[in-house]
């Protein structure tokens, strides 16, 4: 290879890696939220996704491996959630330096002192609030945008608020770029830069609320904007060591409300789930190895 060609190629590769969104082609087929994404077979999944979404087989393989572990650990339960997880390209929402760890069992830095939660936690929280199509969902703390992207595969009314302006703008650009490429589903996400403490009264009330920012109490406005018998989940604690608080706004017979706190395991003590990984088609623990 001549030196000049090599340099040109390297520059092209570098530009590609810096601007993955802009440089990639549009989806081969129109995005269908209800498409029957294969969930039982890795090869079929990858082939289907390459044919319909044009995504990178490397990330698809990682996504499916992670998915199998999540199914094993009951982080995702029903078919709708399974498809939603498999349809959401997590690699689009992580920083370039973390692309290699996009599907790790780990939370990752996304700048501004904010993290993207591990796929298992996102799966678990979303499964717990059991979003039905057409339900209005509010997310406080847009962050990377991955959680809302996942939700957009479950319902067409996703509202998300981010307090940090540059982060809100960056994530909006991520969505817009993906929509332009054909991920029409992300059109269901309405985002704004504001203080999520006061919720989003003009578009509320909401069936489900996910709060992903640290706060020393549950903002009263959010409880007010939650529909009767609505559910809210809030991770409490430092990133990576969080317990997810589940709050149900229970309507009593006399019309008043009772706020029921529990955790997402419905008050069970949950055994430690070992770090598992895929070895071939087998799920194995990495304990003490």
């Amino acid at each position: 290879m001549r030196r000049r060609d090599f340099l040109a190629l390297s520059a092209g590769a570098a530009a590609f890696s810096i601007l993955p969104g802009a440089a990639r082609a549009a989806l081969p087929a129109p995005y269908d939220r209800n498409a029957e994404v294969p969930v039982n077979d890795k090869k079929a999944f990858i082939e289907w996704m390459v044919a319909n979404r044009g995504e990178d087989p490397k990330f698809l393989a990682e996504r499916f491996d992670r998915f199998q572990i999540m199914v094993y650990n009951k982080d995702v339960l029903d078919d709708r959630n399974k498809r939603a997880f498999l349809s959401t390209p997590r690699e689009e929402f992580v920083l370039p330096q973390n692309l290699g760890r996009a599907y790790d069992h780990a939370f990752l830095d996304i700048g501004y002192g904010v993290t993207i939660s591990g796929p298992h936690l996102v799966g678990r929280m979303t499964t717990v609030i059991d979003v039905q199509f057409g339900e209005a969902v509010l997310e406080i703390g847009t962050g990377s945008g991955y959680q809302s992207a996942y939700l957009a595969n479950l319902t067409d009314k996703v509202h998300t608020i981010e307090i940090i302006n540059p982060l809100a703008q960056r994530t909006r650009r991520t969505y817009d770029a993906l929509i332009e490429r054909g991920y029409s589903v992300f059109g269901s996400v309405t985002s704004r830069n504001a203080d999520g403490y006061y919720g989003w009264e003009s578009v509320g009330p909401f069936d489900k609320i996910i709060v992903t920012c640290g706060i020393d109490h549950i903002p009263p406005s959010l409880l007010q904007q939650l529909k009767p018998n609505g559910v809210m989940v809030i991770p409490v604690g430092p990133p990576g060591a969080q317990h997810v608080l589940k709050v149900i706004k229970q309507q009593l017979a006399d019309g008043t409300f009772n706020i029921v706190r529990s955790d997402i395991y419905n008050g069970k003590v949950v055994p430690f789930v070992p770090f598992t990984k895929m070895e071939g088609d087998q799920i194995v623990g990495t304990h003490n190895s």
Partner: protein
Amino acid sequence: MAAVASTSRPSIASLEAPRLAHYLAVGLIAGAIIALQISVMRVFAVGSWSHFGSLVVSLAMLGFSLSSVVIFAGKDWFDKHWQGAATAALLLIGPLAVASNLVAQTVPFNAIFLVSDPEQKWRLLANFLLYLLPFLAGAFFLGIVFLKSRTAFGRVYFADLTGSGLAGLVVLVSMYLFSPETIIVVPLLLWAAGSLLWFLAFGAWKSVVAGVVVAALSIAGYLMLPGLLGIPDIAVSQYKGVAYARNFPDGKRIYRSVSPFGDLQVYASSYMHFAPGLSDNAAFGMPEVPANTYVGMYRDGDGPEGIMRNLAPAEQVYFRYLPMHYPYVIKARPKTFVVQFGGGISTQAALDAGSTSVTVAESNPMTLRAFRDPILRDVTGDILAEPRLKVIDYDGRLFLANTTERYDVIDLSLADSVGLSNPGGFAISEKYAYTHEAMLSYMHALADGGVVSVTLWNKEEPPKSVLKLYSTIAEAARTFDGQGAANDIFAVSSYLSTTTVLFKRGGFTEAEIKTLRDYTRSMSWEEIYYPGMAYDGSAAQKILDDYRASIFGSGEDATLTQPAADATAPADPTAPANPDCDPTAPADPTLDTCAGAGGDAGPQVLPATALERMAWHALLTGGWEKLASDYVFDARALSNDQPYFAAYVKVADLPRTLDRLDLFQDDWGYLLIWATLGIACITAASLVLLPVLFGWRIVFSRSRGKLGTILYFACLGLGYIMVEVGLISRFTVALANPTVSASVLISSMLVFSGLGSLFAERIFDRARTLLPVVLLAICVLLLAYGFYLSPVLDWIGAYPYAVRLLLCFLLVSPPSFLMGMPMATAMTWLARLGKEHLFVWAWGINGCFSVIGSAAVPIVATSFGLSAVLQWAAIAYLVAIPAFFAVLLPAKAPSVRLVTA
């Protein structure tokens, strides 16, 4: 011994008769090194997390041992070229300090990703290696000076210790003048002064010029390079509380003060909301949470603590929904004491509840100064000027321990706590306001029928700190009221929010219990204990076993309790969480869902709540020891001897944490200490073994008593540092602030030890008989301090601050003075006996074991108590007695040359 550097003049050839200027220079350089140590820890405290600063700095001190080994290996070369080597090492300290600090800011590591991101451990290593460099240069300089002043060791050592000690005070005072971004100027100035004095003492004019140029460039570089290169002065982690305030669009710093008490900053933003422990029912019971109510106070970038503005009367219903309102539900128009002012919310709540008077204590003078500043006076409506308010400017715990006043309500709410969890874990720090002794002081200061109210965060699952709090209060209540204790307690909690415990002197009446229970229900908080509460312990053992399995289980049975197996899981979130009435649930009539009318049933009692109920039941009626031993985490009470909300992992479980470290993020401060100890031990072992590789047989063939000598200096290294670090923790009781306590202790100990080493010259000749007596005296003193220090410090704590400082100084002096003698005496004897290699090496051994000792202190303290730290140190000094005779064994060579001092 006759080696003369070719470049030096004969009269000062080998530093055997150093001049005053030499001593001053050595003192200044030793002072610069300790100042750099404290400054680097400030940089870490503000930029990321202080306990990682301690790790990096304590390991950097291994530089002393490393330099000792290198000098040992190349002793002949260093003997010949000592002046050039010393000059080079000296000139490098400043530039290396500047460069390493600057480069370290470009490779910040993020503690919270330490487990999940493989890159972070390399960044941590890079930080360690970078900060090692200036310490290594300093250690080489001092090592060479010691080597060349063998016979005057006692005096040079005196200069070294006194310089270090006084520099501690200099840095303390400098913290009023220099912010953390510029604090390294202090060690640089000390270094510059020391270097110039050193070169001047030798009349080495070229070196003087070089020194001036290097010093000027270093200081200018330190202050200007970050700006020129676009590197931050201190790379503040984006995960520090203050970084978020800066990210808020309208975030604005309205106040800052720097002092030894920390870098205190106050930010205003409409995006700040505080309502610690707010009841969920506030959403429906009150019109609106008051907006724009707070500014956020940050200490060293951690926080925020909310400072509240003066609420309009209509907004004051807000206080009713906070857990600190509890005591006022049964106490009308009380005389109130607030143990810690902090951001002032408890004080506001006390005033709002109609207290006739509120006495509030705040031991941090900078907090009070901030509140008296015109800007914050505007924000708070000048709360400190409120006529009902009386401010005590020292520790509330000490005030109550020594006062004859009696109060109707004593409140300790969320002190030392900032609401949000602390990513990266908490440092091991003493929480004297929450100890058994403190609780007893509060109880004694109650008027008849008075109430102590303690509120703590309850954000752990499995519960950790709340169990320690419960056992502490229960122990104190039993001490105070014997069998009556079961009638004195009322406890509630809110899941993953807060817990509040009330203690009433004389016990609660039926009517009061009813009032408190009604209030609890109206707030949707959980009852944990009240006198007469029914209890069913049938599920107790299962809960304990489940909690242990949840942390240390293999995960094989994970699926059994996962949501899939749970009929109430996501399928219908609106359904009551316990549709199938569980007959094994605790038989609490207020919560027993079986008794409900069906549709309105609440959830099954959460395991955390059940555990908390079990804990109180066991604490007040028996069985606590078994429960605590079966529970997965340590739940022992806090005492002045073990004042820690930390070290929850039981020692026997430590090896099992390794493959699941992310489960222990809030205890990393503790785990890190073990890691430090491990690294220190491994490094120390290598440094001790290296000389063996360099030729133990050849070099040491003439030296007898090698093993004894190693043991002796290891004991001194361990013993001294354990006393120093242990006493710093202890004296925080009287001095009310860890930074001040550290500075006073370091300074007084080192200065008095310096005097001791100077005085030791008088006993050198009779060392064989006198030094064992000195060592025994140290041992006895330390044992006595271990047993009797606590009440003495409580007594000292009631005096004005200046008197306290003086008394602490005096208290430290006797053991410190004696502890200065063994090192100087033994080193001088090694030199006299011509055991020169052992002389160099002993210094390194001492350094190694100092690092091990400093890492061991928090482990001993959390496991066995602070008294044990002093007892272990006493044992080390005792063991040193027989080992000392090995030091005195003459060298084997036929011509033993005794050098007279």
